[in-house]
Every structure is written in C-alpha cells, then in structure tokens.
C-alpha cells in the first residue's frame, strides 16, 4: 500500500513539473485537415509562412526572414501543419495573438475592403473621365471660319503694302 502511495506521489509530482505552453487547440480547435509529412509539409510550411508577417522585421514574411522570432514562428507553423491544422486555422491562430497586422494579405472585411475596392473605383472613374473627355472632343464642331485674306484684313493688307509683297 505504502509503495502505491509513493508511486502516486511520484506520478503527481511528475505531472506538476510538466511544462505547458499555449496550444493552438485551445484557440482554434482540433486540426481540420490530414497530418502532413515530407515534401508536402515543407511546401505547405513555406506557403503559409509567406502569408504571415514577421513582427520584428520591415514588411517581411516569416518564410523569408532569418530573425529568431520568424524562425520560431515558422517552426510552429510547420508543427501545426504536421498535426493536421489547415492554413485557415493557422492564420486564425496567429491573428488571435497579433491581430490583422500579422496577415500579409489583408482580409476582405471592414475597412480593409477599401484597400481592395478603392483602386478599382479609381480606375473606373479615371477611365470614365478620359472617355467622356475624348467623346466631347470628337463631337465638338469644327471651326469653319475661312482663313482671313489680305483683301478682308486691313492690317494684313498694310503689312503687305509695306513689305511690297502681293498675295
């Protein structure tokens, strides 16, 4: 009996000593895809890493940055993909900690919608302005006033007289 109690105390102390780090499952649930290995795991890690901003760099993705922070984040991405987490789940996990700042591709929602829509609107308005100006220019009546002749213009007649030239 004493032996069992000692074993139980030992097991409890082992459990109490366990290091626990925040896990993605706590925030984005269980993996929704199949666990990946090998070349496919490398490829997905790079693809997902390219979508996440390195928080200590200037506009670099974690896939491109050599900083320790980015390397740690990339390791975590790899580990999550190996466990079967989808790209959408991983982006959601990082967004939960860092906000939309961490996403290199802004989401099509809220104020971000403007980032996607405004260039298209500006292009459309610009094209409309150019075409309507071209249309107006084309339909304007041609000035049909005949060129002034020396007989009608006293100034021109005077100049010709002075220079001794005739039309």
């Amino acid at each position: 009996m004493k032996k069992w109690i000692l074993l139980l105390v030992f097991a409890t102390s082992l459990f109490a000593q366990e290091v626990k780090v925040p896990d993605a499952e706590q925030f984005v649930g269980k993996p929704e895809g199949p666990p990946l290995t090998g070349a496919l795991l490398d490829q997905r890690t790079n693809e997902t890493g390219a979508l996440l901003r390195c928080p200590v760099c200037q506009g670099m993705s974690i896939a491109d940055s050599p900083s320790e922070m980015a390397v740690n984040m990339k390791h975590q991405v790899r580990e999550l993909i190996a466990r079967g987490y989808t790209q959408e789940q991983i982006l959601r996990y990082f967004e939960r900690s860092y906000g939309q700042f961490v996403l290199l591709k802004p989401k099509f929602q809220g104020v971000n919608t403007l980032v996607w829509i405004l260039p298209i609107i500006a292009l459309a308005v610009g094209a409309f302005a150019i075409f309507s100006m071209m249309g107006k220019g084309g339909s304007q009546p041609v000035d049909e006033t005949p060129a002034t002749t020396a007989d009608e213009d006293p100034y021109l007649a005077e100049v010709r007289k002075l220079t001794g030239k005739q039309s």
Partner: protein
Amino acid sequence: MNRVVLIFGILIAVALVVVLSAGLGKDPQHIESPLIGKQAPDFALKAVGTGETIDLTQFRGKPMVVNFWATWCRPCYEEHPVLVSNAQMMQGQVQFLGVVFQDKEEKIQQFLNERGTAYPTLVDQAGKTAIAYGVGGVPETFFLNKDGKVVAKFEGPIDPESLQTNIRKAMTQ
C-alpha cells in the same frame, strides 16, 4: 468636365495626405493587442534557478504583471529595477512574473545574480508562449486582472508611472 476632374483630384490628394500623415505618425512595430479583454493564454514554465514549474493559473485571484524580456535586450536593463522595486513594494497584492525567450538560462541567471530579482523568472524555450501573447519585440508587459483577463499591454521599457497606471487598471477592471 475639367471641374469634375479637378474636384476628384483634390479629393484623392486630401485622402492620400490624411492616410499618409496618420500612417507616418505611427510606430510601424507597434501592434495593437487583440488579447485585451480576453483570457490570457495559460502556460506553465520552468523557473530560472529553482527549476520549479510555475503555472499562470496558480495566481488566479490576484492581478498580475507578466513581463517578456531577454538579456540581449538593452531596454530590458533599464526597466528591470523599476519592475523589481514595484514587485517588492506590492508583494502580496500583485504577482509579477518574468518570461524570458530567445535566451540561455546561464545568461539569465547571471543577469539576475548581478541585478537582483523579487519574482519568478520563467524560460520560454521555443518562444511559443511569447507567440501566443503576440510579442513582437522585448520588453513587453501584459497586465492581467484577478480573473486572468488581459487588461493592458505596454511596449518598450516601462517607467514607474505607466507601471502603476496599468496595475491600477488590472486591480479595478
């Protein structure tokens, strides 16, 4: 038509000036923490020196100051005495915790031996805890209320006034 183009041009220019001036005034490294108002991610990490595992949840019921730092970070040297003196002053009322990442345990121990401490310092081996808290650069300090909710985040070396203001927030919210 020229008038319409002119007005449109002015509108675009004004919008650009507003957006750029707002953007230029901001620190590009500043990250608004989406964790504020949410439950702080739980962790249990080994303490430097004792090797004891300290679990964040064991301090529920007390406001907390969780400071992420590293020995290679110069501003961390600046804020360390501020944190230690406040932790001593508020012992029993507020729990302070240091979390060190991207560092070596011997260096951390040496730092603490030379500069002293008044609260547990934990090692975040692969930086997963820092990532879960959205830490961009050290030092960063999180303030948790007695229920474990994040009420504030401070980036950079903390001064005594900011520390006290945020502790008050953690005590009242």
